[in-house]
C-alpha cells in the first residue's frame, strides 16, 4: 500500500515543484528489468544519475514499459497521441520508419552532427533512417553465433569447423553418437527468423540481401531458395531436437545448457544467461559461409534504439539529446559493459578486454566484429510488420516440412509486394 499511495501525491509535488522552477522533464520509457541476475535496470538508473550534470538542470523521469511489452505499448501510445519524450524501443527499420512516416518521431540529423555520434556506422545509421533522415540512436548491438560445448567437443575429439562441409560432417558425427547437434525451439516463432537470417546471409551475402530489401530483386532468387532449402534440410536431417516447433526458446537453451545438445545457434542477447547457466566450458564460433564464394560474416542487429517524440518541446529535445550523448560516451559504455551486461555499439574488443568482460563475451564479439563490412541483416526487425506476420508462420511450416522452399519464398514475395504497394517498405 505504501509505495503506490505515496507515489501519487509525491509525483504531484515534484511536478508542481518542477513547474514552479521551470525544470525541463524528459519522460523515458524503457524495458530494462530491475530484478534478476542480469538486469540492466540498475545500470540505467546509475547512468541517469551520472548523466544528470550533462542535462543542465533537466530531469529524466523513467518509467518501465507496460507488461504488454514496449513494442506494443509504444504503438498504443502513438495511436492515442501521447508518446513519451524518449523511448528505448524496438524494432528499427520498417517499424521505426512507419512511425517516422506518420510524424510521430523527431529527426535527429542535427544532433548527430552536433554530437558526432560516429560510432554509429553506415549500416546502423541506415537501419535507423527513413527517407534520408535519421530518427533514432541505436545503442546496443547483437550478433549471432554458434554456442558450443567445448568440453563435449574435447571429449569427442571434435574441432571447431572452418568450412560448411566441416560443419555438416561435425553434425553427422554428433548424430551418430546420439547427441542432439543443435538445440532449437521455435514455439515462440521468432527463433527461426534469427536462424534463417543467419543462413540467408551466409548463402546470399549482404549485397544480394540489399538488392532484395531496397531494390527490385525478388525473394524467389536462387540464392534465397538455396538458403530456405538448407534450413529445411537441416530440420529433415535431424539437426534439431524432436518436435522443435513445440519447444520454447528458453527450453531449447536449457537443453543446450544441460549438455544434451552440443550446440545452439542464437545471439548475444542471451549471452549472460548462457554464461551463468553453463556448467561446462563453453565457447562460440561463427558459422562458416554456406555457399561458395560468400564472405564470412554474421547477423548484426541492434537490440533497441532511442527515439524522440515529435511532440516533445524543443528544450526537452535538447536535454534528451545531451542525455543520450552522455549515455553513449565511452565512460558510460564501460558501465553498460560492466554493470548492464550489454555491449554497446562502438565498443572495441580491446575495450572489452580492458574492462574485464567475460572471456566468452570477448570471444563472441571479437569474432563477430571482425567482419563489419559483410555482416548482414536480421530479417525480423528489417521487414515490414505485415510481412513479418507472414514470415513467422511460413517459417514454422518450412522447417516443419509442410511447404517447399519455393512456396515459402513465394508467400513472402506476395506479402512483400503488398507491403510495398502500401508504402510500408523501409528505405533508409
Amino acid at each position: 500500500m505504501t509505495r503506490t499511495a505515496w507515489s501519487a501525491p509525491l509525483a504531484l509535488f515534484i511536478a508542481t515543484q518542477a513547474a514552479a522552477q521551470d525544470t525541463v522533464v524528459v519522460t523515458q520509457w524503457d524495458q530494462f528489468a530491475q530484478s534478476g541476475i542480469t538486469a540492466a535496470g540498475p545500470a540505467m538508473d546509475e547512468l541517469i544519475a551520472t548523466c544528470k550534470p550533462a542535462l543542465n538542470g533537466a530531469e529524466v523521469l523513467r518509467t518501465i514499459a507496460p507488461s504488454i511489452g514496449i513494442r506494443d505499448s509504444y504503438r498504443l501510445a502513438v495511436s492515442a497521441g501521447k508518446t513519451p519524450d524518449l523511448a528505448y524501443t524496438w524494432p528499427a527499420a520498417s517499424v521505426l520508419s512507419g512511425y517516422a512516416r506518420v510524424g510521430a518521431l523527431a529527426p535527429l540529423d542535427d544532433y548527430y552532427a552536433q554530437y558526432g555520434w560516429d560510432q554509429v556506422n553506415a549500416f546502423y545509421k541506415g537501419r535507423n533512417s527513413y527517407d534520408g533522415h535519421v530518427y533514432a540512436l541505436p545503442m546496443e548491438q547483437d550478433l549471432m553465433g554458434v554456442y558450443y560445448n567445448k568440453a563435449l567437443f574435447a571429449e569427442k575429439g571434435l574441432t571447431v569447423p572452418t568450412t560448411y562441409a566441416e560443419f555438416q560432417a561435425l553434425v553427422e558425427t554428433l548424430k551418430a553418437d546420439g547427441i542432439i547437434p543443435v538445440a532449437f525451439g521455435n514455439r515462440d516463432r521468432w527463433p527461426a527468423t534469427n536462424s534463417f537470417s543467419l543462413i540467408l546471409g551466409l548463402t546470399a551475402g549482404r549485397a544480394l540481401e540489399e538488392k532484395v530489401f531496397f531494390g527490385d530483386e525478388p525473394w524467389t532468387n536462387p540464392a534465397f531458395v538455396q538458403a530456405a532449402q538448407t534450413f529445411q534440410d537441416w530440420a529433415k536431417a535431424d539437426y534439431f531436437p524432436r518436435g522443435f516447433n513445440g519447444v520454447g526458446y528458453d527450453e531449447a537453451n536449457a537443453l543446450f545448457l544441460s549438455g544434451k545438445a552440443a550446440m545452439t545457434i542464437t545471439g548475444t542477447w542471451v549471452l549472460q544467461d548462457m554464461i551463468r547457466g553453463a556448467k561446462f566450458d563453453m565457447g562460440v564460433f561463427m558459422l562458416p559461409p554456406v555457399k561458395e564464394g560468400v564472405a564470412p560474416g554474421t547477423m548484426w542487429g541492434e537490440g533497441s534504439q532511442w527515439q524522440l517524440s515529435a511532440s516533445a518541446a524543443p528544450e526537452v529535445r535538447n536535454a534528451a539529446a545531451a542525455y543520450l550523448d552522455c549515455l553513449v560516451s565511452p565512460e558510460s559504455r564501460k558501465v553498460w559493459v560492466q554493470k548492464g551486461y550489454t555491449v554497446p555499439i562502438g565498443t572495441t574488443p580491446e575495450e572489452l578486454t580492458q574492462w574485464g568482460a567475460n572471456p566468452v563475451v570477448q570471444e563472441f564479439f571479437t569474432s563477430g566484429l571482425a567482419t563489419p563490412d559483410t555482416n548482414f541483416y536480421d530479417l525480423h526487425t528489417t521487414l515490414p510488420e505485415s510481412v513479418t506476420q507472414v514470415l513467422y508462420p511460413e517459417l514454422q511450416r518450412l522447417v516443419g516440412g509442410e511447404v517447399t522452399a519455393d512456396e515459402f519464398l513465394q508467400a513472402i514475395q506476395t506479402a512483400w509486394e503488398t507491403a510495398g504497394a502500401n508504402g510500408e517498405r523501409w528505405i533508409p
Partner: protein
Amino acid sequence: MSSRPAYFFLLPALLLYGTFVVVPILQVTAYSFFSWDNGIVQEFVGFANYARLASDTVFWAALGHNAIWVLLTLAFPLLAGLLLAAMLAERSPRTIQVMSAIYFIPRTIPLVVAGIIWGWIYNPLFGLLNYGLDMVGLGTLAGAWLAEESSALASLNVVGAWTFFGFCVVIYLGAIQSIDPSLYEAADVDGAPWWRKFRDITVPLLNNSTLFLGLYAAIEAMRFFDLIWVTTQGGPGYATEVLTTHIYKTFFLVGDFGYAAVLSVVLLVIVLSLSAVAFRLLRAK
C-alpha cells in the same frame, strides 16, 4: 408507477457499461471505415477495408478453426459433462460434492496459467504426455502435439475442455436433481438398463441446460483468446489461428487499425447473431 425510479436503478450499471463497453464498440465500428497508418487515422474509405475480407486467407482459416473449436467443445466436454452428471447423480451427496468440486477446479485456474501448465505436459522434450506414453510402451504415438499442424488445435481443445467440463457437470447436476424421481422408478419397473434411462428420460429433460451450455460454449469458442496466446500464438503455421489472435496481431503487431477494426466488427456480428438465436430459443421454452 412512473418510469423514473426504474431509471435510477438502472443508471449506475448503464453508465458503467455504456462508457467502457458500448462506446469502445461504437468507436471500433467507426474505425473500420477509415484507413490507418501506424495507429494514426488517415481518411474515410467507406467499405474498402471490408473488401479485403474475401481475399484474406488467414481470416477464413481462423474462422474455420473457431467453427471446429465449437464442434469439438460441443462433442467432448459437453457430452462428458452430461454423462458424468448423470452418473454422479445417483451417488451419495458426499460423493457428489467431492467429485463435482474436483471436476470444477480446473475452471478456477486462469487460462494463462493453464496454458503454461499444459505447455509443459505437451512439451516434446520433457513433457508428461510423451513420458507417459513411453512408459506404457506407446512411445511411437509420442509426437510434438502443439508443434504439429495436424494435432495443435485438437491438443489445445483438450485444455479448453479440461476447464469447461466441470462447469457442465455442475449445471447438469443441478438440473438433474430437479427431475422427478418417479419417472425413473417407472422405468426401473420396466427393467430398463441404465443407458436407456439416460437416453430416454434424462437427456430430453435436460434440454434447457443443454441449450444453455451449448450456446455458452459456442459463444466462448468464438471469443476466447488467452489460451491460444499463451501457448502457440496461432502457430504452428496458421494451425491454431483464431479470430481473436488475428485481430490482436493486426492491431498490435501490424498496426493496421482499419482492417483490425473490420475483423472486430465481423466477430461481433457473428457472436451477436449467435446470441440472438440463443435468446430466441431460450425464450421460446
